[in-house]
């Protein structure tokens, strides 16, 4: 294992790349906004088409070739919908909630490197920033649930908070293991340090991070927040028109965010042969999207007690063990070659998963709420 900075710093873009402070801000603010919104639009189309394939139905195929114009049709529809505000709710909070939920998700992309040095702000506390800011979105989701004055919304929002605080800890510990290996908190330096993608050096860290990230972004099988069959649509039930669109955008931006973080921290980010770095970044992100949609098409929804037990009794101990093992490897075997470290860590992952699955039982009885 090597410390951060094996790729020469000289090849990186300057920290105020196009020239000066304001130009840098303008260019990257536009890049980030365009990137997030375009990716979300493509992701929504991809998800509907792929889910259609998985469920043996065509999916959207009327608007344009392969239904490619479907997102535009959706935007037109949403812009002409009535913006209802429930009479029983809290109007001010109801208006503010989409803003509070959406802005933090957008802010996270400030530290995601698109290629070497091409990021808005190369914070030296990158990962802590990502973890701190992304959690704020939950406040927004709770505000939607509370302000709607609807019982389903409130239950959905409560579930979101419970789920978030449970999965936050395994996620943080798995990312701490990545920091141990890379020796840096800055996302760009972590990408530069990945001579071998960390999915191979940290297979357990990746597994834990991926599951926890699914839960944080409320994706199936952890989408209890909006469980359609029990609490109808959960937190966004009373929303319509543009406010609903922002909440929808927020959910898919979270998916883009976890794909971007997984790509940067575990899949080698912008690094790769032949193709330009930015293209590698996008390709890896779409590979993550594909897996996410595949999971959604395959797994059923879990129950709340199962979700909580899984976080606290399964993921958390494994994350702690992973952290200690990684720390021991870094301290006692700093010069370990990759060809010995990768098989050891993969074997450890398989052994621990099998062991834990043997004496861990999810509750089978009936539960309330």
């Amino acid at each position: 294992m090597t410390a951060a900075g094996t790729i020469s710093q000289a090849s990186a873009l300057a920290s105020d790349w196009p020239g000066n402070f304001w130009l840098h801000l303008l260019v990257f603010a536009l890049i980030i906004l365009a990137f997030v919104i375009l990716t979300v639009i493509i992701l929504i189309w991809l998800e509907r088409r792929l889910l259609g394939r998985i469920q043996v139905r065509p999916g959207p195929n009327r608007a344009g070739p392969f239904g490619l114009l479907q997102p535009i049709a959706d935007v037109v529809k949403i812009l002409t919908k009535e913006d209802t505000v429930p009479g029983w709710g809290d109007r001010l909070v109801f208006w503010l909630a989409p803003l509070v939920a959406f802005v933090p998700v957008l802010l996270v992309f400030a530290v995601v490197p698109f290629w070497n040095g091409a990021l808005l702000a190369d914070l030296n506390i990158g990962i802590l920033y990502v973890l701190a800011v992304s959690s704020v979105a939950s406040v927004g989701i709770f505000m939607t649930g509370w302000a709607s004055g609807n019982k389903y919304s409130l239950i959905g929002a409560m579930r979101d908070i419970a789920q978030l605080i449970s999965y936050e800890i395994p996620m943080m510990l798995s990312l701490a293991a990545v920091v141990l290996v890379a020796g840096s908190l800055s996302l760009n330096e972590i990408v530069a340090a990945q001579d071998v993608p960390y999915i191979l050096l940290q297979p357990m860290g990746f597994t834990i991070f991926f599951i926890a990230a699914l839960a944080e972004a409320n994706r199936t099988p952890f989408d209890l927040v909006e469980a359609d069959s029990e609490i109808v649509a959960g937190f966004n039930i009373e929303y319509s028109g543009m406010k609903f669109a922002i909440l929808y955008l927020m959910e898919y931006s979270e998916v883009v965010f976890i794909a971007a973080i997984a790509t940067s921290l575990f899949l080698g980010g912008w690094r790769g042969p032949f193709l330009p770095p930015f293209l590698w970044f996008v390709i890896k992100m779409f590979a993550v999207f594909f897996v996410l949609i595949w999971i959604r098409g395959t797994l059923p929804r879990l129950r709340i007690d199962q979700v909580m037990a899984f976080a606290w009794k399964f993921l958390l101990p494994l994350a702690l063990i992973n952290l200690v093992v990684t720390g021991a490897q870094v301290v006692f075997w700093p010069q370990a070659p990759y060809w010995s470290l990768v098989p050891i860590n993969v074997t450890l992952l398989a052994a621990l998963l099998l062991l834990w699955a043997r004496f861990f039982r999810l509750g089978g009885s009936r539960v309330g709420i």
Partner: protein
Amino acid sequence: MLENYGYVALFLLVALLFAAFMLLLPVVLRLFKIVPRKPNPAKNTPFECGMETIGRSWVQFNFRYYFYALLFIALDVMAVFLFPWAVGLRQLGTFGFVAALIFVGIISIGYVYAWRKKALEWK
């Protein structure tokens, strides 16, 4: 280094403006009669599956995550302390590793105690 935080703060402003613009777009479109506005009492009541809502939703109800919240605080603080340790472990060496092991061990005792006391069950 400090200018990076300037970027983040200004980007926060940009993101806020962007979201506010999107939120206020229907308000403007309503003036042009593109977005309709026809409220009625039935439409303004909270959605319920086929029946009228009984009582408000802002009541005390038992949601069972207090134990989790308490444990979360302890473990979250531990995780935050572990990040600076993780960055500098190569320099800290064996001493730093053992120290963190003891630190994590102390928190783990509390975690195992909570597990044994069945605080982690969703009853």
